[in-house]
Structure formats: structure tokens, C-alpha cells
């Protein structure tokens, strides 16, 4: 009986331990704020009003990253409307995409949630359209018009992201390199990578270039060779092409022939770069936020991804993708939806917080008033992007593209599968997954669109 009593008291202690906490609902507001400046240019937000009749209300906002930057929006909004509590819930990427769709399907889920357009087809049925002045929105935001369907918009892009080469400044200097040495073509890149490599006999001490576990971004550089992802009909995947193979072969040669890195050195490129083991990696702009948060001591620079021939403009430098604004849950209750709508109006006109968000992910901002902002113009990543004109958008590419390509690269790099059959296998998986979800590529909308060479 002693045991039972011990357990009972432990249980009681545990209840006491966990019973507290939580709560923190907003306070009732009697009078609408007054004298607050109206923000925005064409699309505007007037904070001088009561929301939810001043009664306390709480809503959740889910995200997989950038919690600090998104929290700033929520904080600014709550300052204007203290009766509102916006609770941000941050989950890792995999968990986010496991749970959010199931939540939404069950008619629950957060009132606000961040969107990645690779899940467009999954989320779309659960999204409420923004209650905004569409004409003003289109005037203020680049590319907003592309998201308008039947005079309705469910989310837009707040910025554009793409891939770049990131280098460790200390290693760069140590190898006697300066800013003039940024390689323009892949041949020069090979030489620079060799200069940045340190070996002790056969053992690598410092990798000149590391692409381990970066296949989901690296695997799509076939555009540089003039090849699209999809066939001309825009619905049949066609990544089993010479351009994809050529691209893969180049990187394999960097490891196998030039020995500037190894599949076994720093199994995750980002981590290895952050630990100061690898001198260069290829990654998308979001790395900026990751590095600042997790590896504050690494001093890094960026330059535009090289091309096959520096004297010739490639078909496209790379693909790009839009970072989406939060979505409103159509299944949330009316009061919450009203707040969410009001909040989105605020979000889209909150210049200061938007600027920090854009900087955190190294985005080319979609909000036009930020285009000339000196801090954003000075951001090395935004500078490196150059003109977006020669970047292509494949559309809201379903997740299977990246996961299948990653599997194919892993099979080639680690399991000794030959590139041709690995890519053919990936194409087969993608085709069978697309058969269930359906996807039409936006490639034909590219200004310089040309069908893949035969």
C-alpha cells in the first residue's frame, strides 16, 4: 500500500505542477483607440476602431519558422487592440505538415496559419478569401494579381526567394581570395572550390564546397541547361532529361574528380557550414535566418549562383518561389475570422515588421514600398539576386518533387545507383503522386519560356 500511496502523492504533486500556467487572455477594451496613424499607401489599415466589440478574444497562429519575426506582427497588433491575444505556435516543418492538414480537415485548427505554396492543393479548400480591397492590394504588391482567382484571393507572396552560393568570409580571405574572385561560371567555381579545400593526405579537413543533404534545391538547376521540369503540356513531369543529368554529373565530379568535398564530410551541408567545416554551400535565402539564429559566429557572404557559360545568359539562372502570407481558416468561428481578416489587413500594411521579415529570409520584397529601402537594397542576398527577370517559377510545386529528387540524389550519392535510373525512378514516383493530386506547371508563363530541347 505504501507504493500506491507514494504514487498517489506523486500524482497529486504532478497535478499541482502542471495545473498552473496557461491563461493570459486579453483585457476588455471600452473605448476605441484614437489618433493612431492610418498605415499603408493604397491598401490601408485604420486602427482607430474597436475589434470584437472590445471583448477579449484569443486566436492561434501556426508557423514552422520565423516565430520571432511573425510574433512582431502579432505584438504590434495586440498593442493597438489589447483585447486580442494572438498565440503563435511554432512547430518543426515535418510536424507542421503532418498536423495542420488533419486539423483543418477535422474542422478545427488555428484561425491563422502560415502557408507554403507546395501545399497549395492540400490547403486551398480550407482557406477563407482575404477581405481586402483587391485593386489596392494589386497596386501595392508585386505578383498579387497572379493569386487572384474569380475576384478572390486566399494568400499572396510577401517576397521572392531563390538559391545562392554562401561562403565563409574567413576561409575566403585565408585562401587569398577577394570579392573580385566571385566565380561567374561553373568552371571557375571548380577552381575556387579547390582553393578553399584543405586536405591532410586523403582526409578532408575543410571542404571547398559541400552539397550533402542540399539536393532538394540543387536538384533543380537543370533550368540553366535550358530544360524545364514539365513537358510542354505543363502537366507531365519531364525531369528525366539530359539537363538534369548534366547538372547532377557536375556536382558528382566536384566530389569524385576534384575532391573539393565528400559525401562523408559533414553529412548536412548547412550544419557543416555553420560549424565552420565547409567553405561554400548552395542554399536558398532562408538560410540567412537560420545562420543568424543558430550560428551567430559564422561570418558569411553570398554571391549569385554561377552558370555554365558566363558570356551567355542562361535559359534561367534558377527557379524561384514566393513566400506566402498567412492563410485564414475557413472553419474558424466567425468572431475569430473577423479578427483574422482585420489582422491580415494590418499585416499587409505593417511596413516595419514586414521589412524585418523580408530581411530575415533574404527575400526580394513584394511590398513595393520596401523596394527602395536602403537596408533591403544593402542586403547582400538581395543584391546578389540581381534582376529577377531571368528566374523561373514552376508554380506551387507539390512536395513530392523535392522529396523524390532528394531520394534520387541519395541513391546516387550513397547507394551507388546510376544517375540515369535514379532520375527515371524519381520521375515515376512524381508522376504517380501527381496523378492523385494534380498539378499544372506555371513554367509556360515564364517570360522567356521555351520548350525543353529534344
Amino acid at each position, binding site marked *: 500500500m505504501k507504493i500506491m500511496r507514494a504514487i498517489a502523492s506523486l500524482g497529486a504533486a504532478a497535478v499541482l505542477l502542471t495545473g498552473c500556467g496557461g491563461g493570459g487572455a486579453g483585457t476588455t477594451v471600452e473605448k476605441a483607440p484614437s489618433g493612431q496613424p492610418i498605415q499603408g499607401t493604397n491598401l490601408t489599415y485604420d486602427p482607430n476602431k474597436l475589434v470584437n466589440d472590445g471583448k477579449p478574444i484569443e486566436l492561434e497562429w501556426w508557423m514552422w519558422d520565423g516565430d520571432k519575426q511573425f510574433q512582431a506582427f502579432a505584438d504590434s497588433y495586440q498593442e493597438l487592440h489589447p483585447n486580442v491575444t494572438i498565440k503563435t505556435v511554432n512547430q518543426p516543418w*515535418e510536424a507542421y*505538415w*503532418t498536423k495542420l*492538414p*488533419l486539423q483543418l*480537415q477535422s474542422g478545427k485548427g488555428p484561425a491563422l496559419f502560415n502557408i507554403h505554396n507546395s501545399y497549395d492543393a*492540400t490547403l486551398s479548400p480550407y482557406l477563407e478569401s482575404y477581405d481586402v480591397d483587391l485593386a489596392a492590394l494589386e497596386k501595392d504588391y508585386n505578383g498579387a494579381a497572379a493569386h487572384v482567382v474569380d475576384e478572390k484571393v486566399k494568400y499572396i507572396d510577401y517576397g521572392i526567394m531563390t538559391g545562392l552560393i554562401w561562403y565563409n568570409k574567413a576561409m575566403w580571405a585565408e585562401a587569398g581570395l577577394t570579392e573580385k574572385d566571385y566565380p561567374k561560371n561553373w568552371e571557375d567555381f571548380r577552381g575556387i572550390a579547390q582553393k578553399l579545400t584543405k586536405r591532410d593526405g586523403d*582526409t578532408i579537413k575543410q571542404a571547398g564546397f559541400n552539397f*550533402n543533404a542540399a539536393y532538394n534545391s540543387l536538384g533543380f538547376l537543370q533550368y540553366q541547361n535550358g530544360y524545364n521540369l514539365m513537358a510542354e503540356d505543363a502537366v507531365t513531369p519531364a525531369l528525366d532529361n539530359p539537363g538534369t543529368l548534366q547538372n547532377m554529373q557536375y556536382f558528382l565530379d566536384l566530389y569524385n574528380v576534384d575532391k573539393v568535398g565528400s*559525401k*562523408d*564530410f*559533414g*553529412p548536412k551541408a548547412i550544419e*557543416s557550414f555553420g*560549424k565552420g*567545416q565547409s567553405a561554400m554551400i548552395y542554399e536558398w535565402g532562408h538560410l540567412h535566418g537560420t545562420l543568424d539564429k543558430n550560428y551567430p559566429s559564422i561570418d558569411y557572404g553570398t554571391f549569385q549562383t554561377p552558370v555554365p557559360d558566363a558570356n551567355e545568359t542562361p535559359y534561367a539562372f534558377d527557379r524561384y518561389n514566393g513566400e506566402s502570407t498567412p492563410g485564414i481558416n475557413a472553419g474558424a468561428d466567425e468572431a475569430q475570422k473577423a479578427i483574422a481578416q482585420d489582422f491580415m489587413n494590418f499585416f499587409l500594411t505593417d511596413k516595419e515588421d514586414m521589412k524585418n521579415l523580408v530581411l530575415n529570409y533574404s527575400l526580394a520584397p513584394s511590398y513595393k514600398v520596401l523596394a527602395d529601402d536602403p537596408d533591403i537594397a544593402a542586403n547582400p542576398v538581395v543584391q546578389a539576386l540581381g534582376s529577377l527577370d531571368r528566374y523561373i517559377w514552376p508554380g506551387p510545386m507539390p512536395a513530392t518533387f523535392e522529396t523524390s529528387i532528394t*531520394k534520387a540524389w*541519395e*541513391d546516387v*550519392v*550513397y*547507394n*551507388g*545507383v546510376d544517375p540515369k535510373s535514379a532520375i527515371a525512378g524519381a520521375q515515376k514516383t512524381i508522376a504517380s*503522386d501527381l496523378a*492523385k493530386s494534380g498539378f499544372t506547371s506555371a513554367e509556360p508563363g515564364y517570360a522567356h519560356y521555351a520548350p525543353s530541347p529534344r
Partner: protein
Amino acid sequence: MTLTTRPKADKRPPEKNNVIPRKPRSRKRGNAGERTLRNTVIIVIGASLLLLTAYPIGLAFVGSFHYWNPLSGAFDFIGLENYTDLLSSGEFWSSLLRTGVFSVVVIFFRVALGLAIAVAIFSNLTRGKAIFRTIFYMPTVTPLVAVAYIWQMMYNPQTGAINTFFGLDINWLYDPNFALPSIIGMTIWKDFGYAVILFLAGLHSIPEDALEAASVDGANAWQRFWSITLPLLAPMTVFVVITSIISYLQAFVQVLVLTQGGPGTSTQLISYLIYEQAFVKYDFGYASAAAFVLLIFTALLTLISFRLSAGRKNSLEG
């Protein structure tokens, strides 16, 4: 250990001379208090079985014949398609085979190590038994997720403890020749202590006179171990093997944390495949079909182990 109920004769309280029952009553019917208690237990267990096991199994079974995607709300009858897709998929069979290899190797080492260490600790020659008992059980009481993270860092080819300590240069989790063995190694480390404790318990319950009689007969320690200790530990071995089969066929967390099934699919175990189909691709129907095939394998293997142990017992007794 056996799952059948004991013969009813066992239950009869032996009559004792000094206890005279005031009123003879049938134990079969029982009194009112007994009935209430009995009925409560039956109802609670029955309800829980129906609601939390029978109903979900039924639903999963029906679902396995459908294209079942909770997101689109699809629940369309497609007959045996999930099963034919599954059984014709190379990925499924290789995952199943891999799960078999994984389970056999881990169970072998778990039993062998567990038995050897338990016997060693049990021996009168060993000092500091309590310390060893604690040490060997420590990995077992550590959450698997935590263990997986520790080992992931130990397996890092550049900064990990294993390569640093042994002067090796192996990319444990990314080399297809080492990835699955790495997961197996970690699982053995985590779980062998469980077998140590169970075998220790088994050793403690061996009647001392059996061993004493044998030493009087002139049997040496080795003979005593083979002819008396080991056969008496047979039920415990069966218990360890069966609980291990059940849990290793479902192993999943170590793969999720360490490799996500990679590189390629070289560490994809069957439960991880089910998890991916269900909660990443939302193909509940296909996942349910795979789960049923797994259930059949689990049941078969469990049954075989029971049969084998029963057969051995008979041959020992007869």
C-alpha cells in the same frame, strides 16, 4: 508462461481441518459482491476492447479496401487495389525483409547479451551486483527519442564520439552498408538491459535445491548451467523473444530520428513506411493495408514462437 487458463481444479481451496465453512457455497456462482466486481471488470474490459481495439481494427480493415484520404474526404471502394499495389511494390517487400533482419539481429543480441550478463551478475563471484543492475538498465529507462539524438551525434563522421574515439572514418548513418547496422547497434544498446533484468528475475526464481541436488551429483558449474539453469529459463526466454518480436516489428522512432529511412530507402522499416503513407502522404487506405499485412506477420511469428516453445517443453518433459 502460458496464455491458457489454469485447470479449474487448481482453484479449489484445499480443505483445512481447522476452518469449517459456516455456510457451504458454490464458488462457481459466487456471492453478490463477487458478481458486482466481476461484472464491472467484464464490462470495463469489454467496452475498452470493443471501442479501442475491435472498432478501430474493423474500420482499418474496411478502410484498407478503399481509397481513403481524410484530407479530400475520399473514401472510395477500390477492392483489393491497395493490397495488390502493396504486394507488387518492391519497396514494401524490401522494407519487410529489412524489418525481419533488423528484428532477428536485435533479438538475438538482446537475448544472448541479456542471458550472459544476467548469469554473470547472478554468479556468486561477482562484486557490486546492485551497481551493475543499475548500469545495464539505464539505457532502457532512457527515452528512445533522447537516445536516438545522443547516438546521432555520436555517429557524426567528423565530430562524433565513435569515430573520434576509435580513430575510424565511417559515415555511419549515410553509408548504406553501415546505416542499418548503426540503427541496430543503437537499439541493442538501448534494449539489452531489459533482457538482463528479466533473466535475472528468472534466475532468482530457480529453486536452489535443484542446483544443489545437481552439485551433489557431481555436475560442474558448466553442466549445471546447460542441464538445469538454461531449461528452467526457457519460459523467460520465450517471454523475452515474444515481447521483442512484437515491439521490433513496430520499430519506428529510431528511424524517424536517425535517418528518415535514408540514404535512399536503405533504412526504411515497415512501420516507418506505414507512418509515411498515412501521415505524410495521407493515403490511409494503403497504410491500413500495409498495417494489416504487418499484423498477419506479427501474429504468425508470435504463434510460431509459442509453438516452438511448447514443442521444446514437451520434448524436455517427455
